[in-house]
């Protein structure tokens, strides 16, 4: 036992094989593209949601920052990218940068206050920030279009080459590439010193302070990064739907993102993906079959996961192997 070299676990690596996870992801995205050619808009929504849930995973799953207000940064990214497209240029990539900056700046400024709080107080404050944003967007009709939503977004071709088509092929691939790149960067981060220190903050802020880490500043950094990623997700949504409504700030969005993350498993990047895909697919299918009771099914799923797989669905393979091997 002591002589066997134990290869250190790499966050986001499946069965220890390099790039297996990425290969599976690309294969699934390709398969979905050919299997459901008429549902590309829905598939694109899933991909955008994956990005939002990934941002939540960084903030909550890794750094342990309890939040129910990730929609604040998502919405701000959406409005910023939307307004940028309307008033400056319809080029998609600069719009993404603007969305990322808007989300990060909001997260940084609100984070300066929020990261002083803990637990329930923190959760309430994150909700408050999102409601304030909602109210501001509602009141600033002249700029945001208020309850009618921000209209008039016209997107130029991606990189000047790929025109957005009405079936949504370009949108699908554009969103996938962006989400995939952010995912790869997050994977790097998860295995790097910063990823480890975020887990440390989650496990024990007292110990982090006792080893000389600037806890508060590190929390603000994590929140800001998460805000930037949520901002990109919002920007993508604004660009591909060419509309931004007040819904982007809704409490429901933050709450659903949290449920998806818990379903898939916090603190593991694949958990965010699995949880989102399952939640949104079940929602899509069940809501079509029974528009009134689909939430019941989601509730059952969450209960099942919480009781039987407290680490989330991403943990299912490990849990099964353990069961088969006789709980060693």
């Amino acid at each position, binding site marked *: 036992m002591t002589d066997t070299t134990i290869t250190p676990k790499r966050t986001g690596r499946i069965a220890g094989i390099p790039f297996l996870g990425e290969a599976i992801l690309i294969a699934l995205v390709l398969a979905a593209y050919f299997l459901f050619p008429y549902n590309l808009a829905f598939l694109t929504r899933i991909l955008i949601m994956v990005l939002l849930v990934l941002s939540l995973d960084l903030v909550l799953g890794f750094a342990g920052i309890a939040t129910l207000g990730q929609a604040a940064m998502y919405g701000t990214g959406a409005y910023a990218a939307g307004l940028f497209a309307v008033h400056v240029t319809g080029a998609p990539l600069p719009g993404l940068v603007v969305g990322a900056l808007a989300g990060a700046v909001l997260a940084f400024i609100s984070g300066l206050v929020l990261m002083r709080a803990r637990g329930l107080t923190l959760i309430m404050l994150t909700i408050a920030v999102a409601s304030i944003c909602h109210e501001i967007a509602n009141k600033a009709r002249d700029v945001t279009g208020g309850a009618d939503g921000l209209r008039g977004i016209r997107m130029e071709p991606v990189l000047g080459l790929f025109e957005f088509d009405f079936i949504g092929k370009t949108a699908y691939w554009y969103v996938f590439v962006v989400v995939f790149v952010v995912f790869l960067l997050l994977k790097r981060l998860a295995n*790097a*010193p910063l990823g480890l220190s975020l887990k440390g903050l989650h496990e024990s802020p007292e110990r982090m302070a006792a*080893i000389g*880490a600037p806890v508060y500043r590190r929390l603000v950094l994590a929140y800001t990064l998460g805000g930037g990623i949520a901002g990109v997700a919002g920007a993508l949504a604004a660009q591909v739907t060419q509309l931004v409504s007040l819904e982007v700030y809704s409490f429901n969005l933050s709450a659903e993102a949290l449920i998806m993350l818990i379903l898939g498993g916090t603190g593991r990047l694949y958990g965010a993906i699995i949880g989102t895909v399952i939640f949104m697919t079940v929602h899509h299918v069940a809501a079509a079959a029974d528009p009134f009771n689909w939430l019941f099914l989601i509730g059952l799923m969450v209960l099942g996961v919480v009781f039987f797989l407290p680490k989330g669905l991403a943990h299912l393979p490990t849990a099964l192997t353990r069961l088969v091997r006789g709980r060693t």
Partner: protein
Amino acid sequence: MSGLKVRGLEKSFGGLTVAQDIHLDLPPGSRTALIGPNGAGKTTFSNLITGILTPGAGEITLDGQDLRALNESQRVKAGVAKTFQITTLFRDLTVRQNLRLAQQERDGRGRAWFRRADSWAEAEDEIDAQLAAFRLKDMSDKRVDDLAYGQQRLVEMAMTLMLKPRVLILDEPAAGVPSSDSHLITDAIEALPEDLAVLIIEHDMKLVFRVARSIIVLVNGAILTQGTPDDIAANQQVRDLYLGGRHHG
């Protein structure tokens, strides 16, 4: 003016005075024990030094540098480190990751995000050496939560020493450790770097008399007496008040 110097330290919680005009010198190489009954204010004293609590009055300097203006993590950078009375570790991380976290903060790369955390070869060698020194090699890839309590205490000490402190405060390092394992703690304390200034808060008198070269007795937040272990062992006041010698009357 080297080492830790405390002058006239005061602290009270509401009406309860827990530190009262405390003076203390901890030059490099010292092995000082801080003893006293439950609630005497020993942990509070440690918290005042490390910056977890703010004193009501008094001075704290390290090599002449005023520590009062520094917050907890800045004091760690200045060279003051402590272990907690109740083991405080990253329980869901492995032993190695615990040490690595301390090391990467010490080396100022806690925010590096593009390179793998285990890709600094020299740093990993240093962790290996530290694990070996604390006889934790076999469990380096186990989660801390899966270790026996005595081993967790060792992990906490190994991790704290990764910070290369100049002043080390150990708050009851042997508390909760089964007697079969307590020699591990004593050995580890005896193997600490010679020039490190060590303050040991402890109830276990066997351990205190084995490792301490001077002893301070704290009662109700004030220093009752201090001296060499022999002085303290012979002190009737200490026997009466603390060592359970009350019935000698």
